């Protein structure tokens, strides 16, 4: 058919080389778009005093980012489909999908390609953020400014925070959510493959936009972007706002896609009690993403027009309130913490039964725990604002809800305790990371109890205690779960086994130095060291030097991982067996590497995924129901 051929030509699937729709075109059009937009924005602002009430042109910068975004997605070929729909051309899915390494650098609607893209994408941002952390710890070797000027230090703090929380929001959901959810529920694809591609490609664009802040000497607000400071900041703040905006859209769409997939694409027989626990984790997280991210988007848009169009949502002297931003931001910000943590719960509970050779203990309790956290996380946000002077009378309520959230979190610990009881535990690397997750999360969670109690929080709020607390939950929880998942599933995703010796070195150094880095910081917080400072009391220097030394070792430990990844993927290439861990789960029953359609026929789910040692348990699925 004519229009189909036309579409194919449009979509550039026949085009090869730098001229097609791919990453290089996207970067070129993005940069061109930025300068075009900045020029147009400058023209708009000319003569309009209220647009130019500053010595800098934020209208131009935002217009630049808008056009850069359009150029980027045009270059990747994202507009081909909507344009053809609006013009009434073919509306079906593209009929074919490219293969080969090149597909990782262009628009692909295959969830497995997107999973790998996400893995390397967020991995890159994680390492940039880690590098920032090393630079921060270098400064903190001495109590006075030595290594970096104050302005550079504050940008490093901002970039570290945004790289780690904003850019890697999809740290687990991106790579493993996209790759594994269809495989785990017996689907051939995600519900919205194009939206899935969009959620990924928003991420590197946001990363590039964020890093462009360096051209304006960064932004001074840390990852929270608190309003009066953000209104005062120079154009680096525009990059922060636009990047977070893109990530917010990405989060919202990712949640929408994952939830729709889980609701509609389950294979026959995949009833709710048979759903793998990781999928439950993704499902509960999706609720948070769909509902919390729009509030962030709105908050950032208000900040954007405050900076560019002279409104005063957050400017007290203009009739606004900085509290408005704090409320809106933390209404998103606290669920965001659970967007990071809940998939981690899912991953460790998925891995524990496999290596304990036992059914998951208390499956319903785990699901209840995840949904309990999801529900409660919408009602706790003001615990970030206990001393801010907002609603002093409501503090007991938020104290209660915050402490209540430890009940569902406690369920997850009980699941782990029950699952290892009377098991046959094999200490593989994924298992080690999963167990370390519980150790770290225990400390992180219990230190949160201090912060939830208002009298205690008055001591610890805004200090290194808070910093140690959330590094224990996010770095010690989420990142350890990410590495557990990486060592566990990458053999399936890449078809290559990791070098186990390097992996064990990575685990033990990461675990030891992680705790040596962050545990002393609880003490630093108790001893009156505020967050985000480049100078501190000289009496704390020994403590800080010890922390910095441990942090450098932790950084080196992450390099072991990179070495292992490159060595195993490029040089050694030990082929992975189909099911190296002897798992019952559905994703391990398909061949390695995973076929293009995941399943040749739609499988029929016949059993529970965790029935290890259950006499007479049926296999989890029949992959060829027609023959069986």
């Amino acid at each position: 058919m004519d229009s189909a051929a036309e579409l194919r030509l449009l979509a550039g699937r026949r085009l090869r080389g730098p001229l097609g729709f791919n990453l290089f075109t996207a970067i070129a059009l993005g940069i061109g778009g930025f300068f075009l937009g900045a020029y147009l924005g400058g023209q708009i602002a000319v003569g309009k005093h209220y647009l130019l009430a500053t010595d800098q042109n934020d209208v131009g910068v935002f217009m630049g980012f808008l056009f850069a975004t359009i150029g980027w997605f045009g270059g990747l070929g994202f507009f081909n489909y909507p344009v053809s729909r609006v013009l009434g051309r073919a509306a079906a899915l593209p009929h074919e999908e490219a293969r080969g390494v090149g597909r990782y650098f262009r628009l692909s609607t295959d969830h497995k390609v997107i999973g790998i893209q996400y893995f390397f994408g967020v991995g890159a941002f994680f390492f940039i953020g880690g590098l920032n952390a090393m630079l921060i710890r270098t400064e903190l070797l001495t109590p006075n400014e030595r290594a970096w000027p104050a302005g550079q230090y504050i940008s490093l703090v901002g970039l570290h925070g945004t790289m780690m929380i904003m850019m890697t929001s999809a740290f687990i959901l991106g790579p493993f959510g996209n790759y594994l959810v269809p495989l785990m529920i017996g689907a051939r694809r995600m519900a919205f493959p194009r939206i899935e591609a969009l959620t990924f490609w928003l991420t590197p664009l946001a990363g590039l936009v964020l890093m462009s802040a360096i051209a304006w000497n960064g932004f001074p607000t840390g990852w929270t972007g608190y309003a009066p400071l953000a209104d005062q900041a120079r154009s680096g703040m525009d990059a922060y706002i636009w990047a977070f905006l893109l990530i917010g859209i990405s989060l919202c769409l990712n949640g929408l896609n994952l939830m729709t997939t889980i609701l509609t694409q389950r294979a026959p027989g995949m009833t709710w009690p048979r759903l793998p626990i990781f999928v439950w984790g993704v499902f509960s997280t999706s609720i948070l993403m769909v509902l919390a991210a729009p509030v962030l988007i709105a908050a950032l848009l208000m900040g954007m027009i405050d900076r560019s169009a002279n409104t005063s949502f957050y400017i007290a002297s203009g009739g606004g309130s900085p509290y408005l931003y704090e409320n809106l931001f933390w209404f998103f910000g606290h669920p965001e913490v659970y967007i990071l943590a809940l998939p981690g719960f899912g991953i460790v509970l998925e891995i524990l039964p496999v290596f304990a050779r036992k059914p998951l203990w208390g499956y319903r309790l785990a699901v209840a725990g995840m949904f309990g956290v999801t529900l409660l996380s919408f009602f706790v946000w003001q615990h970030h604002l206990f001393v801010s002077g907002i609603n002093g009378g409501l503090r007991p309520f938020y104290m209660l809800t915050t402490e209540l959230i430890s009940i569902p979190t406690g369920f997850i610990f009980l699941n782990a305790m029950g699952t290892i009881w009377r098991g046959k535990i094999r200490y593989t690397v994924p298992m080690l990371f999963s167990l370390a997750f519980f150790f770290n999360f225990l400390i992180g969670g219990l230190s949160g109890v201090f912060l939830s109690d208002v009298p205690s929080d008055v001591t610890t709020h805004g200090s290194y205690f808070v910093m140690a607390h959330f590094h224990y939950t996010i770095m010690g929880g989420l990142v350890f779960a990410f590495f557990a998942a990486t060592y566990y599933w990458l053999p399936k995703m890449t078809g290559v086994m990791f070098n186990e010796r390097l992996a064990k070195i990575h685990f033990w150094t990461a675990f030891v130095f992680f705790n040596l880095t962050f545990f002393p910081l609880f003490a630093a917080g108790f001893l009156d060291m505020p967050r985000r400072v480049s100078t501190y009391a000289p009496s704390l220097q020994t403590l800080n030097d010890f922390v910095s030394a441990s942090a450098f070792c932790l950084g080196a430990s992450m390099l072991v991982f990179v070495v292992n990844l490159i060595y195993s993927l490029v040089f050694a290439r030990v082929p992975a067996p189909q099911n190296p861990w002897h798992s019952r789960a559905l994703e391990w029953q398909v061949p390695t590497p995973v076929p293009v359609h995941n399943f040749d026929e739609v499988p029929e789910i016949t059993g529970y995924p965790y029935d290890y040692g259950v006499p007479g348990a049926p296999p989890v699925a029949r992959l060829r129901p027609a023959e069986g």
Partner: protein
Amino acid sequence: MRRILVVWLVLTVIGVPLIVLVLGPHLPPGHMSAEASDQTNANTVMTAVIAPIVFLLVAYFGYALVAFRARGDVLEDGAPIRGHAPTQTVWLVVTTATVLGLAAWGSYTLIVSAHGAGGGQGPNPIALPANYKSALQVQVIGQQWNWTYRFPGYGSVETEHLDLPVDSDVEFHVTSLDVTHSFWAYQLGVKADAVPGVDNIAFVHPRKLGTFSIRCAELCGLWHGHMFQTGDVVSATAFASWIAAQKKAEAFNQKYLTPYARQYFPEPQRRAG
């Protein structure tokens, strides 16, 4: 299972009194004010409550990870237990009771016994000390990157140093001229955000003479770490002579100061840095 419980009981019986009696007195922020004591007590209680939880999990995992390790290379399955309803119920009841207890105790100390525990309560505080009407009023003004203080009871004199009389109620009115700061008098146990356009009230009752450090606990830009001062708790007579000397020294500057107000709105914050 019994062995774990015995280990846990022993650890708890030894550990909790050690925490309360030995570690507790050293927990921050000390006992310079009534509010600081309340926070130290809160920190002690929190540590004492979470210690048994840590002991239980460490004992449990320590035992289980050794006792239930796989021996040999043959792949064996563990016992197919899917759950145990009584355990789950007990766990739910115990965690809920602990959490509700902590929340009730926290709310009680916050509002009734600790009078807001030194935290910023906003313009309309609900946790008030008994004789708050006679409290010394001190306005704390944060700006990039310094703290200044005004004493409305003493002709609104503005000082660059903070002295407080011992054994009297002090009512801090924390506000900001530019961005959000957070007034943190560490040893006094006071922390209150300084937000432009907001009068954030916190109470403190100093009990001991001495020096306390003042920091900014909310990122406020380039020199956030440099918003560092010290203040002193002095006797009532020393305070009276200090404030008189300040009024004299600042008399010239005082003529050009903005009249005292709960909040200040300088020129609308222009966005340029």
